[in-house]
């Protein structure tokens, strides 16, 4: 360990945790190995159970590692390497671990989970999607059984009863969305017996960068159905005829679209000569804006798919269909109108929560990923987690070639096709990573033309995922994928049954080709990591162009390259650097979004907690009955005289109060969303938007409790008690189905100094451009 690394660790710089300190534990575990081999299965289980009784110290840790290793060897046929045990020891000490792909993270997580359970803790193993959660739970079932640890798993089809059982197990596998939605759904229950989740204790996060950072910008939202919003097909038709440039303009970063003056005139005329920008027509204007957004910014097969008469969102960073996601606030309906589909029911946000709040409920957080280092800062800032890297078991011999940059997207595409054809001729398997469903299909067609027949793996045929991946390492195979073939997929060289691997290795292993850089370098690394697992040979190269979205979205005016080769390849060093710069800008923008989401949710989370504490008191205790007995003594007495049971009245009181608590919270959230939308304008008066937001939120919340009591009391006065309890129709709760993200930045104007500087910059630069 160099001096620099030591200093960094001393300063607690993100990503500097020294995991080598856990080495002695691993060594001790190794010493126990021979002895444990002699144990029968029953003895092994008994040994594990003995650990539950003792206190947990270094010896205990070593014993856990040793037992885990032996159990894995017997049940999975895999003996964990030293480095894997090192990872386990680090995770048991609450560190986040970076381990390269193909090093067996799943097993490390399972060992760590078992380790926590044997300390008497309860563990949730959280991953990015249902597929991985189910796969891992099934794969590790025997392993846990041998150690006497109970395990359960949840996916989106699980019933409440199944969920309750799974949460009661000592180890629960689930995707982050499912856990989040269960927590959200639980906060809407009206009977204590209906609760599903258990007290959160330890969470181990697989692919921690994806779950805690990439997903964290999108709050989990619980929505209940409200009025059915409908996209107006007529508006969609009207918008379809508008022309880009003349009638509307799209931003460079393709986040916003606006009507031009001509466009506005045209639309106002078509709509019968009205003035849209008035209070009166605000609703129509909103629908028009949404229709335009759907028309100009959301592309079929890139942002969404149309399957079985439904619009399905594609998650950009995963390349998968995001099943539970919807566009917010009428946009979904606008897209459905654009595609001429029937409108799906729309929702009202009942409650929402960000991943930070979800993770913050756990007493211990740990996790691992192949690309955690890139988010070390975020993990430290938002989750107070410290991170260290585990070395690979065998050195990685994959060759990462420098990027090949082309002037135009067309030339890049041509060069890529040519490259793949050449590699394909040698028989090496090729994996091509693309940015969207549309691109993957287009590329496949182009490869077809030159006689290379590839297999497509994208969100459209995700059902065949496992089969396609299993064969991706075969001789002469070309797989064209979206980001789907990123996390969690393990591509073995040779055919599915493991034959022919050596032959492929002699040819040079798997060749990974990227058709551009993603919006963060971590995704590039994930793609590259598909090759070169566990010391396999392999290579990777990314083809980029100056017309790639990552460049055009993030750099206003890229410099034209100075040197362009005959095939259009740009060798200009500064230009090549430009692409990296664009990616860094994009990463910074994402971090900013993340940070803002986080900052604006902190106070809401606090208020939410208070409401939930109150709600819990109502749900499990006598709070509602006490309150209403006191406030509406006459009514209470009257109900008693009508012959209602005391318990029935109390139950009614509880339901009434729960209803108003939830209702008021929904209103509160809607109010805050509204405030949030325009709060950035405050920066113009040199106020801090976040502070102003807090001021408003706090003032509004001050009346929360009183209003809930008041409304509960007045409902209680009127409500009828029937055989079936109280009659509170129209609170039909639905499954969570909506997501929502906020605007990019807190202060889009820049600070006052920045604006003055911008003026100066323009003044300084304009004479220069005159000379050109």
């Amino acid at each position, binding site marked *: 360990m160099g001096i620099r690394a030591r200093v960094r660790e001393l300063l607690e710089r993100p990503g500097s945790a020294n995991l080598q300190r856990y080495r002695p534990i691993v060594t001790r575990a190794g010493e126990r190995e021979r002895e444990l081999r002699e144990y029968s299965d029953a003895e092994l289980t008994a040994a594990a159970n003995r650990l539950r009784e003792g206190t947990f110290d270094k010896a205990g840790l070593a014993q856990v590692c040793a037992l885990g290793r032996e159990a894995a060897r017997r049940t999975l046929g895999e003996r964990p390497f030293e480095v894997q045990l090192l990872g386990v020891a680090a995770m048991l000490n609450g560190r986040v671990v970076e381990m390269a792909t193909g090093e067996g993270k799943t097993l490390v997580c399972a060992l760590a989970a078992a380790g926590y359970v044997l300390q008497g803790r309860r563990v949730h193993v959280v991953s990015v999607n249902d597929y991985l959660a189910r796969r891992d739970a099934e794969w590790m079932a025997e392993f846990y059984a041998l150690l006497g640890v109970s395990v359960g798993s949840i996916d989106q089809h699980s019933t409440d009863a199944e969920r309750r059982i799974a949460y009661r197990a000592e180890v629960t596998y689930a995707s982050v969305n499912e856990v989040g939605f269960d927590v959200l759904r639980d906060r809407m229950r009206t009977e204590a017996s209906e609760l599903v989740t258990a007290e959160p204790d330890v969470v181990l996060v697989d692919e921690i960068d994806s779950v805690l950072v990439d997903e964290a910008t999108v709050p989990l939202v619980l929505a209940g159905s409200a*009025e059915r919003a409908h996209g107006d097909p007529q508006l969609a038709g009207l918008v379809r005829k508008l022309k880009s440039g003349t009638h509307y303009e799209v931003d460079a970063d393709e986040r916003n679209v606006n009507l031009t003056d001509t466009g506005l005139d045209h639309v106002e005329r078509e709509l019968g000569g009205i003035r849209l920008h008035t209070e009166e027509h*605000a609703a129509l204007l909103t629908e028009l804006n949404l229709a335009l957004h759907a028309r100009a910014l959301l592309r079929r097969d890139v942002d969404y798919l149309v399957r079985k008469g439904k619009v399905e969102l594609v998650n950009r960073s995963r390349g998968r269909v995001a099943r539970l996601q919807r566009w917010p606030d*009428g946009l979904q309906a606008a897209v459905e109108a654009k595609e001429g589909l029937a409108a799906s029911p729309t929702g009202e946000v009942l409650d929402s929560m960000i991943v930070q709040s979800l993770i913050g409920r756990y007493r211990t957080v740990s996790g691992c990923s192949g690309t955690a280092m890139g988010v070390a800062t975020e993990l430290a800032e938002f989750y107070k987690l410290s991170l260290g890297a585990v070395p690979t078991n065998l050195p990685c011999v994959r060759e990462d070639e420098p990027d090949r940059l082309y002037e135009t997207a067309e030339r890049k595409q041509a060069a890529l096709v040519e490259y793949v054809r050449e590699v394909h001729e040698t028989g090496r398997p090729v994996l091509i990573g693309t940015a969207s469903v549309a691109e993957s299909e287009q590329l496949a067609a182009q490869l077809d033309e030159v006689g290379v027949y590839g297999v497509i793996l994208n969100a459209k045929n995700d059902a065949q995922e496992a089969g396609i991946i299993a064969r991706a390492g075969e001789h002469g195979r070309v797989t064209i994928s979206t980001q789907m073939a990123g996390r969690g997929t393990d591509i073995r060289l040779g055919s599915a049954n493991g034959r022919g691997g050596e032959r492929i290795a002699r040819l040079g292993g798997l060749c990974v080709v990227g058709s551009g850089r993603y919006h963060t370098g971590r995704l590039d690394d994930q793609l590259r990591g598909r090759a070169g697992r566990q010391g396999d040979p392999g290579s990777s190269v990314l083809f980029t162009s100056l017309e790639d979205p990552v460049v055009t979205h993030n750099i206003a005016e890229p410099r034209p390259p100075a040197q362009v080769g005959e095939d259009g390849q740009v060798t200009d060093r500064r230009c090549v650097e430009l692409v990296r710069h664009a990616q860094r800008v994009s990463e910074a923008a994402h971090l900013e979004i993340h940070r803002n989401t986080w900052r604006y949710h902190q106070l809401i989370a606090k208020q939410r907690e208070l409401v939930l504490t109150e709600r819990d008191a109502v749900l499990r205790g006598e709070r509602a009955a006490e309150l209403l007995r006191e406030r509406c003594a006459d009514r209470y007495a009257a109900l008693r005289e009508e012959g209602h049971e005391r318990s029935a009245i109390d139950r009614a009181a509880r339901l009434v109060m729960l209803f108003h608590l939830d209702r008021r919270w929904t209103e509160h959230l809607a109010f805050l969303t509204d405030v949030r939308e325009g709060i950035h304008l405050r920066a113009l*008066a040199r106020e*801090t938007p976040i502070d102003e937001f807090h001021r408003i939120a706090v003032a509004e919340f001050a009346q929360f409790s009183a209003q809930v009591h008041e409304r509960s009391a007045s409902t209680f006065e009127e409500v009828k008690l029937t055989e079936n309890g109280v009659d509170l129709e129209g609170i039909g709760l639905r499954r969570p189905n909506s997501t929502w993200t906020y605007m990019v930045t807190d202060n889009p104007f820049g600070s*006052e100094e920045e604006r003055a500087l911008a003026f*100066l910059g323009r003044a300084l630069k304009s004479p220069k451009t005159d000379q050109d």
Partner: protein
Amino acid sequence: MLGAFRSAFATPDLRKKILFTIGIIVVYRIGSTLPAPGVSFKNVQSCAAQMGQGGIYGLINLFSGGALLKLSLFALGILPYITASIIIQLLTVVIPRFEQLKKEGQSGQGKLTQYTRYLTIALAVLQSTGIVALAVRGQLFGNCQQEVIPGKDNIFTLAVMVLTMTAGTAIIMWFGELITERGIGNGMSILMFINIAARLPNVGEQMLQNAGGLTFFVVIVVGLLIIASVVFIEQGQRRIPVQYAKRVVGRRMYGGTSTYLPLKVNQAGVIPVIFASSLLYLPQLLQQLVGNGNSWWQRAIQTYLVDQSNPVHIIIYFLLIIFFTYFYIQITFNVNERAEEMKKFGGFIPGIRPGRPTSEYLNHVLSRITLPGSLYLGIIAVLPNFFLGLTGEQNSQNFPFGGTSVLIMVGVGLDTVKQIESQLMQRNYEGFLR
């Protein structure tokens, strides 16, 4: 406000932050009074007393909290750091590499901060060398004949002085960052505030000696009135309602009262005053460079421009402030850009079309509100000039209840209190359900 402070102290981690800030301020004040090694404290004291508070370094002295004319450890104050950050900020629009770094978020910003620090040190070396040189030649204190640096022939002594002052600046910079990071408020602003506030007792004492108790009392009362009115006007806003049309909202049960575009009465802040006074500083600088001559223009400059109690000076100052107010608002509040941005995010002012009509409307409102704003700035800024006779001062910058000082102090004060309040609100939630 006092209530806010009381509850702030009742909140443990907020109390920690405030105490931390106060601790830093105390250390900073101590450093400001400690003379640098090699300085004759007694002689400096008497020289400074002889000279009064005028002179070419008046403004710098003000911003260093009087530390400069004590030749203290922190003689340079926070100014090199501020200058350095302004320069680096300027460079980000000129140098492409800096521009790139700025856009790359945290890591890029980190590098820029690092450059700012280096530049601060460089500036500090330059400035402290200059000051030591001036002090050695006896020019720092006007015509004072006493030796402020007894060992001035020894190059080693001088080098140590330069070194300590530079180190002092580095420490101040660190203090500023510490306050921003772990304390309350913006470190740079707070230190600036402290520098200005620290001079108040001194000035008050002089006033008491020169003008007597009654005047002193009247000035204090007037001063408090000025501060109160500044606080009042600083919070004055014109709120233009804005509506957003990008989301379909179910039922709206509340008026959109919280979404508006605020225009401050004093939209320009303190900058126009600083611009105007720096510009009016030039003739004085010129005069000091060429010395006191007797040709007609030199006399004219002396009478009309340098003498701050002359009506011509006051009127020019006043007009310059009004001009700079309009100019600065024109720069920073680009109505076209605001209108474009509102359009981009789907916002509009009800009844007004986005784009050109919106920017015209904004321009109209802005120019209406800037007039009283600029008059107010002008009045606040020239007020001390009328009091000059009372305090025996020659330099209006040193008068604590007017111009730059009061605007900066009130601005920083309001910001800091707001921040404390905001943090308080986030934390103090106990007893909400009662």
